[in-house]
Structures are given as C-alpha cells and as structure tokens.
C-alpha cells in the first residue's frame, strides 16, 4: 500500500525531451492509468517510477521517500510487461518464486505465497509447465502472479493486455479490475487503449508529447475534457470537430458555419461571450446527435448528407458530411437511413464542447 508522488519529472534523451514536467499525486490503493498515443512519454514515466530509466530532473516519492536513486529491487514494486517477460528456462512455479527467492524468503513461505497467488489467478494446474507450453492468456496470468506473490507496494503495468486477442483482452481487463479491488494495491497502468483507460482507471492521466494533458476520473475527462486533444482521444467513435464562427444575433449567441446554424443555450452563451465574432472549434460526440423530429427546434439541428451507414446492431453509425466536414453520428438502431439521404440531426445543447482555435483549450 503506498502513495506515489511525482514532482516536476523530466526525462531528456540526447535531443529528445520525452517527459516534460509531469506532476502526479497517486493515492494509496488508487488505480491510475496513463494513456496517450505512442511516443507520448507514458511508458518512460512508468519506467522512471520502476527505476529502469534514470531521471533527468524532478522527484519520485513512494510513501514520502524519494526513490530517485534507489535501484529497482529496493523500491518494492512489481511490474508486468507487455511481452510478459517470463523467464523461459524456469517453470511457472519458479517464475513466480524467483522474486521471493531473491529476497531470501524461506521455502515454506514461498510455497504458500505461490500457491495463494496461483489460486487467485486460476493457474494451479500449470505450475510445473514452462512458459512456452502456455497460451497467451495463461502467460499473462503467470506474469500477474509473479507480480502479486511479492505483495509489493505498487504495481506497474506496461500495456499488459496489448499482446492478447480482442476477446481475451476484454476478459483479462475485467479480471484485472477484480484483482485490484481484491488486493487494493496502488497501481499505475500504461496503455494506448482508451477503452482500457476508461474502464480500469480510478483516475486517468492523458499524455501527449511528454506533457500531461489532463488528470481526472474517467467520466470527468469524458464529459469535461480540458482541451481538444483529450476530447478527441477519449471516446469511440471519436468526437466530431468543426470550426464555427460565433456571432451575436437577435439577443442570442449563434454558432455559424456552412450547414450549421445553432442557437447556443444560455449557459454556453455566457461562457463564450468573449469569443463573439471569432472562430472556435465545436466538438460534438457521436452519441449527442440524433435524427431530428418535428418537435426539435430548428435552431439546434444541422443539415447532413449521409455518406455511409454502419449498422452495428445496438446502434447505427452514420458517417455524414455537414458543410465540408465529415462527422459521425451514433443514432438509434430503429432509424431508417440510406446512403445519400439528407437528414436533419438534432444536437444535445447541454453537451456541446467548444475549444479555442489557437490554444485548443476548452472554453
């Protein structure tokens, strides 16, 4: 059980500034997910916490102790790697026992702990096998088992599910969550998969180009993204963006663009007042659009031309063009729509996102 505090953390390789001024406060028992596109510095950050990468500047504290110079073995952490990193010449039992042997636990205690971890993960039957005789999912469990036998203060996960096929990944994701609830160990989890981030994390840290973009609970990030990048990164299909001009007419604030003429609700209007007569980015999530009915007010709908209809069963994804912009709308499966149809799509006025065109920050 531990708190992990990261203060002004930087990592520079010769020319490349990989991690820029990262600050994080990870609470005891918290499951924090670092997410971002490849090369965003998330793995480097994790490796610095593990002690596998030297720190250029800044501090990492585990339970109020600075661990910057501590070798990995003395940090009392456990890490699960993307390729599992199982020791190929050792049996599953020895793989799991290795860390305890290195820490000079006595035999009976090692046996108990390995057995206990094996039971939690359901791998008791494979203890004598070599890693190459196991399937991907089983290897993943052994890698997890090797981490949990030591009862470390912090778990570090480096894209542990990326090598599994889609179905198994969903299953292991659930098991990971259960495992965390059961053990309550502080965990830092790195992934590029926003679904994993949203489902696993107590809090999610979105990173880009070495900078932390936003830290928050999954739904907070989803509903109130701090900037256009976070808004576009989380959610599938991704948020739609288009450039609109804000203009004052008839006592209200309007968002105008080719094919778009929206009267902004009062709350948004007051926030956006300083941006009147300027261009901003409008963001709309696909699920915040629906096919407009007769009751929908005209000034909260947009004209769209259907390009592609993707019927997923639970919903329909309409790829449409609005003015010159391509958008995706997730609509009710009962909607009848065909290619080249012209539709009016009603927007949820409370869930419109606006971003400064220059800084990309949310308004």
């Amino acid at each position, binding site marked *: 059980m531990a708190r992990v505090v990261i203060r002004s953390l930087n990592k520079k390789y010769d020319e490349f500034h990989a991690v820029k001024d990262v600050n994080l406060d990870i609470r005891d028992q918290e499951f924090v997910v670092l997410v971002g596109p490849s090369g965003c510095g998330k793995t480097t950050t994790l490796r610095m916490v*593990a*002690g*596998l990468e030297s720190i250029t500047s800044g501090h990492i504290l585990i339970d109020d102790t600075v661990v910057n110079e501590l*070798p*990995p*073995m003395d*940090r009392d*952490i*456990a*890490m699960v*790697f*993307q*390729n*599992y*990193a*199982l*020791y*190929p*010449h050792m049996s599953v039992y020895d793989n799991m026992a*290795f*860390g305890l042997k*290195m*820490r000079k636990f006595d035999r009976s205690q090692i046996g108990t702990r390995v057995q206990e971890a094996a039971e939690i993960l359901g791998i008791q039957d494979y203890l004598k096998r070599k890693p*190459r005789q196991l399937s991907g999912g089983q290897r993943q469990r052994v890698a997890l088992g*090797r981490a949990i036998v*030591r009862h470390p203060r912090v778990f570090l996960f480096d894209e542990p599910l990326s090598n599994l096929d889609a179905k198994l990944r969903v299953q292991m994701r659930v098991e990971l969550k259960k495992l965390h609830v059961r053990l309550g160990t502080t965990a830092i989890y790195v992934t590029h998969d926003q679904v994993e981030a949203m489902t696993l994390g107590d809090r999610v840290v979105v990173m880009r180009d070495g900078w932390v973009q936003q830290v928050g609970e999954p739904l907070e990030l989803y509903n109130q993204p701090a900037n256009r990048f976070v808004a576009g990164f989380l959610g599938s299909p991704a948020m739609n963006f288009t450039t609109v001009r804000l203009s004052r007419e008839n006592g209200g604030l309007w968002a105008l663009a080719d094919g778009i003429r929206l009267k902004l609700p009062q709350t948004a209007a007051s926030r956006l007042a300083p941006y009147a007569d300027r261009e901003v980015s409008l963001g709309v999530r696909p699920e915040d659009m629906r096919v407009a009915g007769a009751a929908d007010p005209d000034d909260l709908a947009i004209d769209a031309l259907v390009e592609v209809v993707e019927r997923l069963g639970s919903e329909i994804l309409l790829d449409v063009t609005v003015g010159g912009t391509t958008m995706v709308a997730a609509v009710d499966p009962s909607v009848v729509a065909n290619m080249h149809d012209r539709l009016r799509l009603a927007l949820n006025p409370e869930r419109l996102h606006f971003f400064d065109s220059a800084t990309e920050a949310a308004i």
Partner: protein
Amino acid sequence: MIEGARWRRWSFFYVPVTAFVIFLLFPFYWMLVTAIRPDRELYKPWSSPLYQPFWTLHPTFQHVHDLLTQTLFSTWMLNTMIISIAATLISLFCGLFAGYALSRLKFPFAGSIGTGIFITYLVPQTLLFIPLSDIIRNFHLGDTPWALILTYPTFLVPFCTWLLMGYFKSIPKELEECARIDGATRWKAMLFIVFPVALPGILSAGIFAFTLSWNEFIYALVFLSSPTEKTVSVGVTSDLVRGDVFYWGQLMAGALLGSIPVAFVYSFFVEHYVSGITGSVKG
C-alpha cells in the same frame, strides 16, 4: 522442398543433394579406406593390373596400431585436448562478460569498442603469428602448452564476444529488467536469467571455439617444436612424414582419429548448436 512432378524433385533436389554429399564425404571415405588398407596395396602403382583404389579386400588395423604404439600420437591427442579445452574456457569466460557488457551496459564508446574487437578478429593469423612469436619468446613460453593456450584466445575471444553479443541482443531486455525489479542485482540477473537463457548461444560459441582450437595449425607449428609438445594437426603432418617417405596408412589413421573428437562434440551438442545459430528467445 521442391514442388511438382517427380522428375522435378529428382533433378532439382535428390540428384544435386546426393552429388553434394558424395563430394563432401569423399575425403573422409578416402581417409578411412587408406587407414585400413595394407601397405602392399597402398604402394601398388596405379598401372598395375589389380589396382583397386576405392576399396580393399584385406582391411587391417595395423596402421592404427602402429600409430598408437610407435608414434607420439596419443601424446598429441592429449596435448590438443588440454590446449583446446583451456583456450575455449578462457575465451568463453572473456567472451561471455565482454559480450554482455557490450550488448547490455551503456558506457561511452561501447559501439566503437565492439567494432574494435571485431577488427582484431579480421587480422589474419598468418600475420599475427610474427609479433606473437616475439612475445612468446620474451615470456619464455615457447614449446609449452601455454604458448597456445594464451595465443588462441587472440582470435577466439573476439569470435566468442561477437557471437554472444548478437545472442544477448536477441534476449528481450525486459527479462532482465523484470528480474531486477523482482529483487535481483544486475549481477544476479545476469547469472540467473541472462546466462541460462543464452545457454544455446554459449554452447555454440564453445563448440566453435573448441573446433577452431582443435584444427588450428599455424600457431601450433610455429610455437611448438619438440615432438612431445605438438598438437595433432602439426604432429600428424610433420612427424608422420619421415624424411621424404609418406606413411600414408598412419597419416590417414591419424587424421581420422584426430577428427573424431570434433565430430563427437558437434553431434553431442547439435541440438543446442542448431538452435543457437537459428533460434532466439521469444517472450
């Protein structure tokens, strides 16, 4: 495998392979036939009416017997064995740590040091023996096994280092990182994780080093002179030709017996050896 009609398989696979195998094995066959052929058949002129160069109807172990009793052949075998094993162990030891350091540790000039080691391997032995013989003389090592045990590593260490460097690079570094997080020091991670995983590569390097030492000729020829100190390769070619008389039966028997240990080492380790060359470690 060649696909298609039977004639294609025969003409593009079986026939060429058979020809190749015959071509490669013929010297060994010739060695064997000559080694067991009685002298009266050996020295029969080729023009004689009953000349049968490719087989004999009167096989004899006389040459082998003479070789082991009347010459120093068994001493040479022992010398070669000791020298090869010692040189191999020294080279493996150095190669193992040098290869690990060059492939895993980050230190200044690691890359250029690696290249430098490789370049030393490229210096031909036929040139290197000249300065080396000077060194051997200054250290009074001439005509002792040490002359070879200490000079063979000049080409074996670079060889082992390069082979093992490549092998270490094929081992995912996460294995070692995981061990270090698990509580192992770098030293222990190397000993308990990296080296065992690299065992096929280490065996391959050892087999190659052993074979190269066993077959080495020029250093052994230059640095050793007394008949009791010689190795097989030099002893057979120098001491079994007395004056201008070639004792073909003994020569071939010596060559045959001399190649057995290498053949044995290869076949014994062939499984590891093959995987050492072709395989790597999957995560």
